[in-house]
């Protein structure tokens, strides 16, 4: 039994857990949920890099399990963060969110550990479907609408990916998922499919549209997997594609500007995910082994501090029931521990020395420096300063300080504090002793040769780096407080790329409605009402004229009276209109027709 576990994708353990969990009750349910990622973590630790397990499907060999250092690093962090998320969600007694989370996280692990494009696609779609339930579970009309848009975007993304995969397999006859070396239609489609999940501009707006509508636990879970699985697939398939540098820099800046405009705390954090994933996408674009390791390290640390930030925002939402900066404030008095943990997350995302952001983001910036990418380097530095502005100060300031609105909720439940404490510890631990993180990176030795990794090396021997970093952050903070009046929150939302399908589509529909329907009207009045009757009359008039000509000859021969002529003329007209002639007449007319045809 245990042998099988080592030979199959860790995803299946999560799926099995999801099947069993609904039958459990009370604490057992919660403990069971927590145990699944814990066991998986140990299993992943035992997997040896280089292992490939295949099963036959149709006439392809599916690599259901492929282990290397890249997949293991993501495996570690996915299980670690879901472990914390289940501790955080201990207050939850219903199965829906747990089952969705288990399948969602399991599928993310499935993507990371599958070695071929078929299995990857299956897990990819499962992720999209089950993450939707975490939004639906909020059961508000807004979340229902957001979930609908979310799943539509992901279905579209999935279909683009599928089209790319099918074309790729057709062209190369291989389903193996490795780096795509050639640029053609199939690889571009696959890239777009991945970028949609990464929240890359211009496919970014689904993320801040959907995540803030999820449940308290849902928000924490969602923040980690979809975009980071996309970072993994990009790192595996598209390392060194130059366009990713531009896209990444764009995302980093876009995230800051929109986060500054936002009023809802969870939407601020959603935009800050795009900002952070921008760093990783840029690193993948740089593509050197150091940059890829940097992207992985940053994804690892990002998942921890971003989950921590979502947890602290979730605790506030859980206790206060509000998430707009214009409605909350002054919570430091009643939720000091939530503030403390949230602050650690906020400082970690801002790469403050002694926190994990400082030891991971630096690798990416160093990689840009080694490649002499001056402009990307500068944009990444600017974006680092901007992160402190929107996530490092704006989020804690407007939620916990700003105006005291008289809200005095209770401190977050113990389970939430426990999970936040665990992640806050990791943020500081990885900031002080990053060696354990560097050891699991794809190019551990390279990173350790270029980066300081012991406490004394980072904070004593490389002290100038600490000084410049602190200088940058403190002056960013100064700007925030000097220009605070300009950052005053308003009760608004900002128009984003989703305008295209939320409003633009309706406008398109209306324009099409006006254009096509007026075209229809014109066609109706010209063709149906005028042309067709005129044509009909013409068709009737020609044979009538011919018949009357013949009849006139007979009238002349028969020397018919005016009365008879009038009667027969009317008869011919009525028979023509009804198309009913006596058989003899029809026969004569047919004969005439044949004669005419014969002569012609």
């Amino acid at each position: 039994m245990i042998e099988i576990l080592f030979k199959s994708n860790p995803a299946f353990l999560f799926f099995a857990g999801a099947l069993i969990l609904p039958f459990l009750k009370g604490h057992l349910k919660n403990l069971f949920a927590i145990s699944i990622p814990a066991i998986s973590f140990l299993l992943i630790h035992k997997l040896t890099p280089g292992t490939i397990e295949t099963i036959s499907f149709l006439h392809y060999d599916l690599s259901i399990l492929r282990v290397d250092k890249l997949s293991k690093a993501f495996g570690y962090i996915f299980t670690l963060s879901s472990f914390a998320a289940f501790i955080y969600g201990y207050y939850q007694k219903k199965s829906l969110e747990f089952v969705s989370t288990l399948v969602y996280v399991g599928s993310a692990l499935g993507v990371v550990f599958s070695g071929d494009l078929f299995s990857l696609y299956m897990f990819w779609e499962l992720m999209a479907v089950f993450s939707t339930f975490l939004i639906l579970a909020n059961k508000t009309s807004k979340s229902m609408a957001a979930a609908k848009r979310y799943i539509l975007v992901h279905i579209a993304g999935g279909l683009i990916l599928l089209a790319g995969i099918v074309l790729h397999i057709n062209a190369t006859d291989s389903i193996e998922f490795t780096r795509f070396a050639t640029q053609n239609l199939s690889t571009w489609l696959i890239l777009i499919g991945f970028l949609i999940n990464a929240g890359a501009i211009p496919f970014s707006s689904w993320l801040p549209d959907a995540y803030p509508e999820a449940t308290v636990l849902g928000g924490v879970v969602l923040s980690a997997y979809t975009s980071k699985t996309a970072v993994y697939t990009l790192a595996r398939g598209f390392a060194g594609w130059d366009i990713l540098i531009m896209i990444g820099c764009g995302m980093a800046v876009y995230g800051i500007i929109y986060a500054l405009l936002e009023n809802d705390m969870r939407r601020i954090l959603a935009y800050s995910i795009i900002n952070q994933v921008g760093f990783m996408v840029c690193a993948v674009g740089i593509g050197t082994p150091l940059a890829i390791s940097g992207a992985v390290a940053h994804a690892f640390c990002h998942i921890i501090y971003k989950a921590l930030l979502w947890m602290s925002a979730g605790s506030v939402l859980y206790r206060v029931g509000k998430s707009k900066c214009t409605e909350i404030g002054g919570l430091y008095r009643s939720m000091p521990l939530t503030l403390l943990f949230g602050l650690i997350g906020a400082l970690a995302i801002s790469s403050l020395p002694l926190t994990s952001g400082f030891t991971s983001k630096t690798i990416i910036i160093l990689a840009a420096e080694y490649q002499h990418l001056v402009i990307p380097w500068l944009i990444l530095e600017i974006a680092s300063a901007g992160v402190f502005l929107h996530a490092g100060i704006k989020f804690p300031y407007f939620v916990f300080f700003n105006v005291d609105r008289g809200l005095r909720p209770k401190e977050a439940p113990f389970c939430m504090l426990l999970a936040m404490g665990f992640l806050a510890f990791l943020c500081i631990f990885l900031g002080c002793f990053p060696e354990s993180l560097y050891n699991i990176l794809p190019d551990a030795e390279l990173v350790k040769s270029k980066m300081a990794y012991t406490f004394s090396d980072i904070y004593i021997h490389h002290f100038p780096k600490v000084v410049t970093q602190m200088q940058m952050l403190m002056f960013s903070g100064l700007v925030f407080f000097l220009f605070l009046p300009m950052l005053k929150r308003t009760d608004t939302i900002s128009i984003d790329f989703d305008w295209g399908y939320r409003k633009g589509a309706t406008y398109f529909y209306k324009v099409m409605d006006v254009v096509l329907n007026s075209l229809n009207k014109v066609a109706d009045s010209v063709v149906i009402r005028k042309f067709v009757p005129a044509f009909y009359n013409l068709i009737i008039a020609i044979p009538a004229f011919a018949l009357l000509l013949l009849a006139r000859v007979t009238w002349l021969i028969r020397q018919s009276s005016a009365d008879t002529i009038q009667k027969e003329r009317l008869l011919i007209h009525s028979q023509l209109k009804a198309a009913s002639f006596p058989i003899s007449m029809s026969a004569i007319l047919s004969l005439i027709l044949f004669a005419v045809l014969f002569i012609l």
Partner: protein
Amino acid sequence: MNQSHDVGYFDKESTKKLLWRLLWGVCIFFLILELFIERHGHFGDHSIDSYFGFFGLLGFFSCLICILIAKGLGLFLKVKEDYYDRDII
């Protein structure tokens, strides 16, 4: 909740004044600290990032520009919360 009698530590004017001084103090401290360390430019010894106070200025002006851009874009992009719920035409 009567707030005039129940002012939190961070809402007191004296605390705010102290924090302002602390912030300016920390900024100046790290600026002065740079005089005592030896550092090199990331793109050669004479690249612009090797100048004194480069990172402080970078932090200050990049954040200022971000705020101004956000403020400017906000004029066009900010809409009422029910924007998407309203029927058009």
